[in-house]
């Protein structure tokens, strides 16, 4: 079976982002970009399934401008067999991303699609679910454990009430939670090897996907700051302060 993995490039999770003073966006010039952490987990899981013999091929998919190629090479260095680069300079909303994946699925016929549960830039948490709907296949979101046997995936999901186990017939869409695995590090020889792995380049316009712009972002603002707090010197003072506020 073939596994398709979504591999988004985002502002590195260690960067404390700044909102532009005029409210038109966040500062991204010169800011470090990395793989979305949940996508690294998705790729790691796909590679482990290949190592177990469940899958033969792992394909990473990225959507973005021409220089996204370097990012996709990281996915190849981590171990993906090949990459697909859908080229567009426009920001792509989740529904459009799901429609792009749907087109690629028609062509690639994967047995499994693994995406991160959310991207840490837009925090939308939608693409995997939307893709499963368009494809009319099962979804297993927020996965913390995946087992594939006899054409079905048994997935443990992290839900508010605890851990939920569901069974999904393949093909299916799985989205990854943090606890699914610990992604491997890229080794230098793998970076060299990745240079000869294929990257298919597809122009967004050639896919016949309608870009979705139902949502327009009209303003960016920094979050409201909390006012400066006070320090107390011991437990008794803390209890007194909380009692005074009526909290204890």
């Amino acid at each position: 079976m073939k596994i398709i993995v979504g591999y988004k490039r985002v502002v590195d999770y260690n960067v404390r982002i700044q909102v532009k003073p005029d409210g038109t966006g966040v500062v991204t010039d010169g800011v470090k970009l990395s793989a979305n952490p949940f996508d690294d987990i998705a790729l790691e899981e796909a590679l482990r399934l290949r190592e177990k013999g469940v899958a033969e091929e792992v394909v990473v998919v990225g959507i973005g401008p021409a220089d996204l190629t370097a990012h996709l090479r990281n996915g190849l260095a981590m171990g993906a067999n090949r990459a697909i680069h859908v080229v567009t300079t426009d920001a792509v909303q989740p529904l459009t991303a799901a429609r792009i994946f749907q087109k690629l699925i028609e062509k690639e016929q994967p047995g499994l699609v693994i995406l991160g549960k959310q991207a840490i830039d837009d925090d939308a948490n939608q693409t995997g679910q939307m893709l499963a709907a368009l494809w009319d296949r099962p979804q297993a979101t927020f996965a913390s454990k995946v087992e594939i046997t006899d054409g079905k995936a048994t997935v443990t999901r992290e839900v508010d009430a605890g851990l939920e186990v569901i069974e999904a017939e393949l093909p299916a869409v799985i989205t990854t939670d943090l606890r699914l695995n610990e992604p491997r590090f890229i080794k230098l020889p793998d970076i060299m090897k990745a240079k000869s792995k294929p990257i298919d380049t597809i122009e967004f316009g050639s896919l016949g996907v309608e870009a979705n712009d139902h949502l327009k972002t009209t303003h960016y603002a920094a979050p409201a700051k909390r006012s400066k707090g006070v320090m107390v010197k011991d437990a008794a003072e803390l209890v007194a302060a909380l009692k005074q506020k009526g909290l204890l």
Partner: protein
Amino acid sequence: MSKILVIAEHLDGKLNSSTARAVSAAAAIKPEAIDVLVLADNVSAIAADAAMIESVSRVLTIARAENAHPLAAVLAPQIAKAAAGYSHVFAPSTTFGKDVLPRVAALLGVAQVSDVMSVEGAHTFKRPIYAGNAIITVEADANSTVVATIRTASWAAAASGANSAPVEALNIDVALPSHSRFVELQSGKSDRPDLQSASKVVSGGRGVGSKENFEIIFKFADKIGAAVGASRAAVDAGYVPSDLQVGQTGKIIAPELYMAIGISGAIQHLTGIKDAGTIVAINKDGEAPIFEIADIGLVGDLFKIIPELEQAL
């Protein structure tokens, strides 16, 4: 005029308080009607709870055996059908709402607004991005259905008790897939208040040191009637189960009192508690970032301070 359909979240035959929070966001639009949709195998008790929520116009129910457990692939086609005639479809931004609602949006061919913090107009909303480090204003297309999840920490639950909305069974003719099956739910059942709706929360972090040591946090929480939470570090270290995790990738909460004990305050964690009323930090490192947002801070050893707190109560 707006007509809003709110999808009810429930567990074990009881309505979850997140539903009443989504109703509050719906009411902020001042719509013509707010209807609550209950999908379950046994709907009556849940529907009765929903009918009491203030400003709910009607409670619609779809009782089917397939709806016994919240499988997105099963619920979404029913919700998409039921959405006809509504201007908005809302669900709480819990793991339930996050799982099912984007599937509904895709079936309707529309975008989704995730984690609505505030309503600026019938089609204009504020939501957080970059782990809450920026707040954006988004405008949804006025010609299509608005599908949105409601950030529960930003909205108080609508009052309940005075209303008695009519309950109507909805007959929806839609074929449901059999490709997804519920197996089991392993819940960390406890008698403590629910983390997401508790007015007081006591959280422990890596500084607590071990699973055994976490007992001191549980004991103190019980003493003041608080729910227990944890940082990602404490969950990853195996001190407590992951359903206690507070933060961007765990639960986002807004209790009146939040006590962070032995938690340094990574951005990821702070995102989950920014809307808390009063934040108390107890940490032996006076330079820990948690003190930057704490209303009251106390530097010291938690194993010494907690017993002292219990004494002083």
